[in-house]
């Protein structure tokens, strides 16, 4: 679920350019002069002598009396909690946010851990915590399991846990992988497609969630990303076009058949989604060049085989981030940027009703994907399961907005976490 594009190299190169080649004249003399005049502190006077440089605390054995006191304290707290829990609750109804969403629990990440917010409460509670970094909480379609990525700084694993917290998270990938570029659970939740480097090429691998052996799809085409078609029998996978500034989109049979070229997409793929009936795709092309010198991203729709491709708007200069299928497949929500504000246009695909336009939020800083947080500069709306509203998340100055899909009205929804919400998203 990352999008490697040389950005890391760009930052490193730029910092190298920006950094001064040497210190200012006179600084060395000033410092050495001061050192000559400075008395050293004795070692025993310095706290840090007794503190390890390592940041992870190491605890020794706890004394028996302390253990007894801690146990008694915990028992007292548990009894208090039981007594409080016996009181009638004044929060039995769903909070407005989750009423809007449909139902289900809501997951989010914070400081490398995963938190869950129950519909009946407002404060996120720890769901998965570890010394490693948990990223990209992703629900299976039936809402029964949560998948996430666990990084230890050098390797990554895909983990799965019951959404109700009834079991310990377990690793899906048999061994830690040096890099995960993309992964998504299958529509029925039985597999995860994993895209990542394997030797000199990219591997497209199907990993069963039941722990049985995974298998690579024999594409040998260095795919850079893949999503599932709704029937689970094909993947839509992309790869960089050889010798051209763009991407190629393929349908890859999950039974091991040959990939079929769908389309060449000039500039690359910024967003890709399949209609719920699996007959069409909606996508946004990447800008031809950063810096405002090229064509901005454009939203398109086409048949699943690539035929009948046409743009969804006739704008020339607007920046179109994506087109997002409603749960029933009758509408597409197109996100565009107009004068620094995000506009959501909900297009009925039968041509009957007029589009609903909502100028959702002013852009004042970075944005992240409200689905998985992956695309830093984009607000990807999340449709409510009942199709009545969309959710938008702004990362800078965190804000969660709900857009009424019928009227375009925008309301702010309460959300106390600093990260985007991921719904369990059961059907209403």
């Amino acid at each position, binding site marked *: 679920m990352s999008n490697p594009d040389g950005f890391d190299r760009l930052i490193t190169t730029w910092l190298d350019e920006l950094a001064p080649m040497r210190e200012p004249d006179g600084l060395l003399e000033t410092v050495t002069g001061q050192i000559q005049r400075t008395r050293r502190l004795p070692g025993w006077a310095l706290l840090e002598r007794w503190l390890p*440089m390592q940041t992870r605390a190491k605890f020794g054995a706890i004394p028996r009396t302390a253990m007894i006191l801690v146990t008694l304290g915990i028992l007292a707290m548990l009894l208090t909690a039981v007594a409080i829990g016996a009181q009638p609750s004044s929060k039995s109804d769903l909070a407005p946010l989750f009423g809007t969403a449909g139902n289900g629990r809501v997951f989010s990440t914070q400081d490398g851990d995963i938190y869950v917010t129950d519909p009946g409460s407002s404060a996120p509670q720890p769901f998965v915590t570890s010394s490693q970094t948990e990223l990209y909480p992703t629900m299976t379609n039936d809402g029964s399991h949560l998948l996430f990525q666990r990084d230890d700084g050098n390797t990554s694993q895909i983990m799965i846990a019951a959404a109700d917290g009834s079991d310990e998270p377990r690793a899906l990938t048999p061994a830690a992988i040096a890099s995960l570029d993309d992964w998504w659970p299958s529509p029925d939740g039985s597999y995860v497609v994993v895209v990542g480097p394997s030797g000199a090429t990219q591997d497209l691998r199907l990993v069963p969630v039941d722990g049985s052996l995974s298998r690579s799809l024999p594409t040998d085409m260095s795919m850079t990303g893949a999503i599932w078609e709704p029937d689970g029998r094909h993947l839509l996978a992309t790869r960089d076009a050889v010798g051209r500034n763009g991407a190629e989109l393929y349908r890859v049979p999950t039974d091991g058949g040959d990939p079929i070229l769908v389309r060449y997409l000039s500039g690359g793929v910024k967003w890709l989604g399949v209609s719920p009936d699996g007959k069409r795709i909606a996508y946004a092309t990447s800008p031809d060049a950063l810096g405002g010198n090229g064509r901005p991203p454009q939203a398109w729709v086409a048949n699943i085989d690539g035929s009948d491709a046409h743009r969804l708007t006739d704008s020339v200069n607007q*920046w179109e981030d994506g087109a997002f299928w409603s749960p029933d497949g009758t509408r597409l929500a197109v996100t565009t940027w107009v004068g620094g504000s995000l506009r959501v246009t909900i297009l009925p695909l039968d041509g009957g009703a007029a589009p609903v336009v909502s100028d959702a939020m002013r852009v004042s800083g970075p944005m992240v994907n409200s689905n998985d947080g992956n695309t830093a500069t984009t607000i990807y709306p999340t449709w409510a399961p009942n199709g009545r509203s969309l959710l938008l998340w702004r990362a800078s100055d965190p804000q969660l907005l709900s857009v009424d899909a019928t009227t375009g009205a925008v309301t702010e929804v309460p959300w106390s976490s600093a990260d985007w919400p991921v719904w369990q998203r059961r059907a209403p």
Partner: protein
Amino acid sequence: MHRDLVERAMAGDREAFTELTRHSIGRLYAIARLILRDTERAEDATQEALVAAWKQLSALRDPDRFDAWLRRLLVRACYREAARDQHQRRIVAQIRPIEMGMPDPGVALADRDQLERGFSRLSPEQRALVVLHYYLELPMHETAEILGLPIGTVKSRLFRTTQQLRAALEADARLPLAERGQA
């Protein structure tokens, strides 16, 4: 050679420490200026870190960890500099772009300007993270060690910080387009 100098300095040899200072001051100053975005404060932080290192050198247990320890002192000094309100107000009144080196060795002009804007919007803590990881190209565990943070926290913060930089790049890229569209 380096370890020998550190051991001599730990034993109280000022000349050895002066030699270490001579070796490291340029890189330390570069780090401080990237974090603080200001030449004067970077000088102050570099000086503070080196003098503190001399004063506290007997606290260092492993001579091989001297560089990491020194960088940790520098980052702390940068945080202190950044927190000095009076100084900050003066800097705000005198904001000036940091002069570039030779033109365009690797980064396109437009991207450089956008990175500059995005980088300047980061907090000193975020810039320290970026500088340690991308400029010094330190591995995650060493970055965590210098910043005094758990590695998981460093990873998630770095993830979010690079998101912000990416966002600055694209947001700045699309604004002129959007505004042209309105004209």
